[in-house]
């Protein structure tokens, strides 16, 4: 029997990790991730979760300890934000290169400087090419479901890659939402105990983390890349199995109101809810705008995205990170490349919103639709609401 209750999303995320029966958690506190790790350490302290919680002295050691624990065969979980994600950056590549099925809840937050504890996507965009599978969540229910699915994806023998579940700092992590929790019994039958293919054990010695000379490095990285790209099939399979079992259906790319319009927004994370609100309001004026939501960001769901946008004439890519001198925001660049490679005639626009926790109002999206916010082609993108 599943239970539905009003709960803070961070607490819900830690309950999801408990339902997944994580065995080792290594984490270092950072706002806005703290409520997740606080509740997990409470669950361990009370004996409600049979796991070891390692109070590491930094995020670098958090990810390092996760690598050790996962390599030794334990189901391993951690969580971080912003500076913490950057401090563990080096080890993120190693976790994926060593094919360790670690799951991390990344509570997206702006990067310093200036210091900001508030939400945006500058942290995850700086870590997007670390070889992890990356899911984005729009609401608390998705966070819970994604964490449970993440372990099943990560540990699948055809995948064996770490998975990041992204949730927006504060605007998602700290809100109270009605969330349905599956029963432990159902989660257990969906997600059986982790049986590693190889693990560090004296009865079966293995060497992990050997170095690659030029004659083998390319092949090693190519094999890893293929595993990441091919993981999409497993991800879709796990999402389907989850839907069949729990009645909540997910897809790598989800759409809202895209059928009768040639305009769509594309966005990641909880901002999608603000956009959906704007779309409903536009509808009340008789205007139709669509929304294409990327639930899966890595591997980049090219085919699914292409079928969602191919009939569109105008697309606004909404991002929560500065391009940092690039031609456009990182999400835009990948969508532009997809559109170019398929010779589609689509007008693409790029809008930057919600940096460092700046409020994102549904009116922005109404104004974008109505072209009241002008798209600055000379700058390639428009930063909404910036005081120049």
């Amino acid at each position, binding site marked *: 029997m599943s239970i539905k209750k009003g709960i803070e999303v961070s607490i819900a995320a830690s309950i999801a990790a408990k339902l997944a029966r994580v065995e080792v958690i290594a984490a270092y506190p950072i706002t806005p991730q703290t409520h997740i790790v606080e509740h997990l350490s409470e669950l361990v302290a009370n004996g409600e979760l*049979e796991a070891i919680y390692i109070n590491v002295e930094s995020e*670098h050691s958090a990810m390092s300890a996760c690598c050790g624990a996962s390599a030794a065969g334990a189901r391993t979980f951690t969580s971080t934000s912003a500076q913490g994600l950057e401090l563990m950056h080096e080890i993120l590549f190693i976790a994926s290169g060593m094919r360790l099925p670690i799951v991390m809840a990344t509570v997206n937050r702006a990067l310093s400087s200036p210091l900001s504890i508030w939400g945006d996507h500058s942290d995850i965009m700086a870590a997007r090419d670390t070889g992890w599978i990356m899911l984005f969540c729009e609401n608390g229910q998705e966070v819970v479901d994604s964490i449970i699915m993440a372990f099943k994806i990560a540990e699948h023998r055809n995948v064996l890659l770490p998975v990041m579940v992204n949730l927006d700092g504060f605007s998602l992590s700290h809100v109270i939402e009605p969330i349905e929790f599956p029963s432990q019994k159902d989660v257990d039958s969906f997600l059986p105990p982790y049986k590693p293919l190889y693990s560090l054990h004296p009865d079966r010695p293995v060497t992990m983390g050997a170095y690659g000379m030029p004659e083998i490095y390319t092949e090693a990285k190519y094999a890893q890349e293929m595993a990441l790209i091919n993981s999409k099939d497993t991800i879709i399979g796990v999402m389907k199995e989850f839907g069949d079992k729990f009645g909540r259906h997910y897809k790598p790319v989800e759409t809202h109101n895209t059928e009768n319009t040639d305009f769509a927004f594309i966005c990641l994370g909880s901002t999608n809810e603000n956009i959906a609100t704007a779309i409903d309001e536009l509808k009340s004026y008789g205007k139709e705008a669509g929304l294409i939501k990327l639930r899966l960001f890595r591997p980049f769901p090219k085919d699914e995205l292409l079928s969602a946008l191919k009939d569109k004439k105008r697309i606004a890519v909404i991002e929560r990170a500065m391009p940092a001198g690039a031609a456009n925001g990182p999400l835009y660049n990948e969508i532009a490349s997809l559109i170019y490679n398929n010779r589609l005639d689509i007008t693409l626009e790029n809008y930057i919103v919600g940096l460092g926790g700046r409020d994102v109002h549904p009116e922005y999206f109404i104004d974008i639709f109505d072209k009241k916010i002008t798209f600055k082609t000379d700058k390639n993108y428009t930063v909404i609401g910036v005081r120049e």
Partner: protein
Amino acid sequence: MRLKGLELYTDHPEAEFVASGHRACQGCAEILALRMALKVFGKDTIMAMATGCMEIISTPLPTTNWEIPWIHVAFENAAAVASGIESAIRILQEKKKIERKDIHVIAVAGDGGTSDIGMQALSGALERGHKFTYICLDNEAYMNTGIQRSSSTPYGAMTTTSPPGKKSIGQSTWKKDMAKIAAAHNIPYVATACPSYPFDLFSKIKKARSVNGPSYIHILSVCPTGWRIPADLAIEYGKLAVRTGVFPLYEVEDSRYKITYSPEPLRPVQDYLKGQGRFRHLKDEDIELIQKRITAQWEELKYLCSLK
């Protein structure tokens, strides 16, 4: 002493956990130290190794020299990786997912991976009380990358980033005392060792393996390549380091210091420094300064050992 040594010799296991064919330099006392240590740690050992000489000489994909489970993640995090392994083994045994037996986790790093870049991860792991042994194989510089100075490089030594010159004596700082830093964590067991004194090393590894909590062994590992000495003198220079008091052999058991081999009367440091290319440029007054420091350190150590 001889008899006691012989007993230990007959005691120590013949098993080898380092396969031959590794790529260490001729006369490398580091791989020797590790080979000796692994004999005592035995089969039921999991090793987390930092990037460095021992990693690079042993594991070009797809080959390995390790006959025990071994993992390398990065340079600065061997202690953190070991923390994760130790925790995983403990919980998997508690949950009866793996058989309950005495598996020991060790973390191995060089002096750079320990006293510089890995210090934070090491301090964290020692403070948290994981049951594991951390071994620092100290060859007194970043030898793997081409002999750059570390905080463990001794005063006056020439390295590629502490070259002597008109305005430089070479390494201008005194060697960081890592064993004392480890001891300051009040962990059950800390020791220094040197493969030139194998029985002393064996007995310390045995103790480190048996204590219930973190243990730290700092092993002086003579590096002929970096120290600019003939390869066949590695063992000799290890002995000289001990006999001059440059590298005293001692242990700290439950915060009590004890010298395990007393070389008194100490030989002059000149005997240790003179044949090494890395100290060739030192003048008499430099050596005098080093002698003063070494004598003072030895006296301090004796004082610490006198405390009850």
